[in-house]
Each structure stands twice: as structure tokens, then as C-alpha cells.
């Protein structure tokens, strides 16, 4: 378990609306491994019309990781953090 300050920005989708959230989260080890493996990756070709794109930044003591993901790249290990931050973004 490791604590990160995380920010998420979801763009695209047919709605074209942007959702943003920031949170301090404890990541289980397998999720941390999955996220750090994606660090600096992504941001390639569009996946197709109206798909979401996620920009995630994870930071802890001097480390900073930026990950840009298309929605088809979201694996089972990456999804929980994204879902959690989306819930934060939706709350009023």
C-alpha cells in the first residue's frame, strides 16, 4: 500500500464534457505496479470516434508520473482508481 496524490482528467466521449478530480489515495501494490508501468506511456492515435481519454498524474515525495490512456487501454488493475476519481468528480 502506497499513498499518492492523484489527479484525473477525463475528456472526449460523445458528450464532450470534461470531468476532473484530485485525491490522496492509498494504492494497493498490484494497482501501483500497473500504474507505474504505464508512466510516460500513451497519448497515441485516437481509438475511434467518441471514446474517452484519461489523463492521470500520480505524485509522491519527489516522484511524478503522467499517464495518458485511451479507454480501451484501461485494464482491470487501472479501472478502480479511475472509477474512484470519477465518483469524486461527479460529487457536488
Amino acid at each position: 500500500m502506497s499513498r499518492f496524490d492523484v489527479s484525473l482528467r477525463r475528456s472526449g466521449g460523445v458528450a464532450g464534457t470534461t470531468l476532473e478530480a484530485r485525491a490522496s489515495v492509498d494504492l494497493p501494490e498490484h494497482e501501483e505496479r500497473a500504474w507505474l508501468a504505464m508512466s510516460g506511456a500513451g497519448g497515441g492515435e485516437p481509438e475511434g470516434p467518441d471514446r474517452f481519454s484519461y489523463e492521470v498524474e500520480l505524485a509522491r515525495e519527489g516522484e511524478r508520473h503522467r499517464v495518458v490512456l485511451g479507454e480501451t487501454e484501461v485494464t482491470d488493475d487501472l479501472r478502480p482508481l479511475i472509477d474512484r476519481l470519477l465518483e469524486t468528480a461527479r460529487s457536488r
Partner: protein
Amino acid sequence: MIPPHILKAICRNGTPEQRDWALATLSLDATLRLARAEATASRAPARRSDPLAARRPGALERTILDAGGRSSVDGARVVREEGDPPSSEDVAVNEAYDGLGATHTFWWEAYTRDSIDDRGMPLTGVVHFGSRYDNAFWDGRRMVFGDGDGDLFNRFTIAVDIIGHELAHGVTEDEAALRYTGQSGALNESVSDVFGSLVKQHALGQTADQADWLIGAGLLTSRVKGRALRSMIEPGTAYDDPVLGKDPQPATMDGYVTTAADNGGVHVNSGIPNRAFALAATELGGLAWERAGRAWYDALRSPDLRQTAGFSAFARLTLAAAEALDGRTGPVRRAVAGGWDAVGVRT
């Protein structure tokens, strides 16, 4: 023998007598093709996917599948097929079925286009995709709908123009393959909004001045301060909400947004060509798919439309299409030119 594309052009542009003749010839042609296909089928095992096998041009063939909340279409279960009665308890299934039908009917009745590929491609819709999934998309083969999160977005089958929007992505892919980034991406988006809106106007029998020119009315929940996802006639005014922020669409080139997000702002800058279309259509009046929509459709199908076309290149093709409809000084060309001029796109 007259090639089918010429006959279709006559169906679209001819006098009523010419249209009747061309339609009869087209159906005779289809009958001949059918007879040939049947002769072939009697020798070989029938294949249901054979586009020539026992199919009437313009016939609807819909299948709705249920993804059961999974983020994958694999294993989705068939819940309604063409001709089946409505599902009694699942409104998303019925909305998807009806929306695919309205869209198919629009393309066939307005432009004699036989489904997405103009070759009678069967239509497949997948509902209940993902968990609290705020989206609908065309994946190159089928339409996929989420249920929305319930906080910001309702189910994505709720708006027929969204269904029309997604299927129009299929038409654009088939005809023009506009690259989904920057200006060509914003054009790709705008073409989907234009024909999505026309699907709705056609289904409701609305003239241009009766249309709301909104995209996705009904999709935002009552908690959101907003009317829809986008306004074609007044881009930037669809919503202004504490969570979603303000509708970021510009109405003119002065407000063109440069960004890396959303594939270069394809859902943002689409407001500019959207408004050009809405202005041209309302200036012309009447049924928007007949003249303004026709010019846009002909531009989309032009062999001169490049995959990387920007707004100006597309605008010039709509002008050429308008001129082909009623001449250089006719009302269509004048209205289309006025629309592009008003949003600051040089032609």
C-alpha cells in the same frame, strides 16, 4: 444499363416522373440481382451474410444485445431482433431498437442510402455497456450505449439524435474517413451532429424553424444546469453547471480552441461548422435534410474530400454541392455561403 449510382442521383434530383422511373429501374435491378443471387444460392449453400441474398433494398435488419454491465461486447446476449415485439421491461432495448430504426429510415427516405455502408449493412446496438458508463460510441461495426451514471447523465439511448450521431460516424468512416483529430476530427464530429439532428427532425417531421437544434436533449439529469450537450444554433449555451463547467463550444473561428485533450478539441470546435449548417438550414427554411442536408451529404461523398480536410476545404465542397443543386446564384448556395461566412470560415 444505367449504373445504380446514377439512378440514385435521379431518385434524389429528378422530377417526380424521373424519380418514379429511376426507383422502378432500381428495384428491377435489385430483382435481377436477386434472381442472380438465388440462382447462385441454388448451387451453393445459402449464406445469411450474403448482401445479395433475399434482401429488399432499404430493408431494416436490427439486432439489440445486452452487455449486462460489462465493459466488453464479447458475450453480450441477443435480446431483440428485427420484428420482435418490444421488450416489456427494458426501456434501453426499445429505445435502441427504435432509434436504429429512425436512423435507418432517415438515410433511406432522405437520400436513398441503404444503411451505413449503402449496401444494407445490418444494424447492431449493444445496451447496458459498462458500469455507470457516461457514453455511447460507434466501434466500427456496432453502436454501443452506456446507462449513464444517473448523477450527471441519463441512459444514452434516451436521445434519438445521439443514436443518429453514432451511426453517422459509420457513414463518415465509409464515405470520407475524416481523420479524428484537429479540424478534420471536428468536421467528423460536426457531420455526426448534423445528421444526428436531421434524424430527429425527420422522425418528428420538423421544419428547420421548428427544430431545437440541440444535441442530446434529455441526456443530462435534472440535477445538471443545462438543456443538452450542445447547441448547433448557439454553440456554447447548452449548459453551465458547477460540475460540468460551462459549454466550451465556440460559435466562430475567433473562438477556435487549441488543445491536446479530446483529440484536439474535436467535440469543442465542431461548434463552428455546426452553426454554419444550422444557419444555412434556417435561412433556407423547410425540411433541413432536403437542401442544406443534401449539400452536406454530397460534400461528404465528394471524391475531392480528403481525410485531413480542414473547415475551409469542406466548406468549399458544400458550396460546390449547393451550386450543383440549384446553380451559382440559387438560394442554396447563397444560404450555405452565408452560414460559413457568419462563423468566419473562409471559402
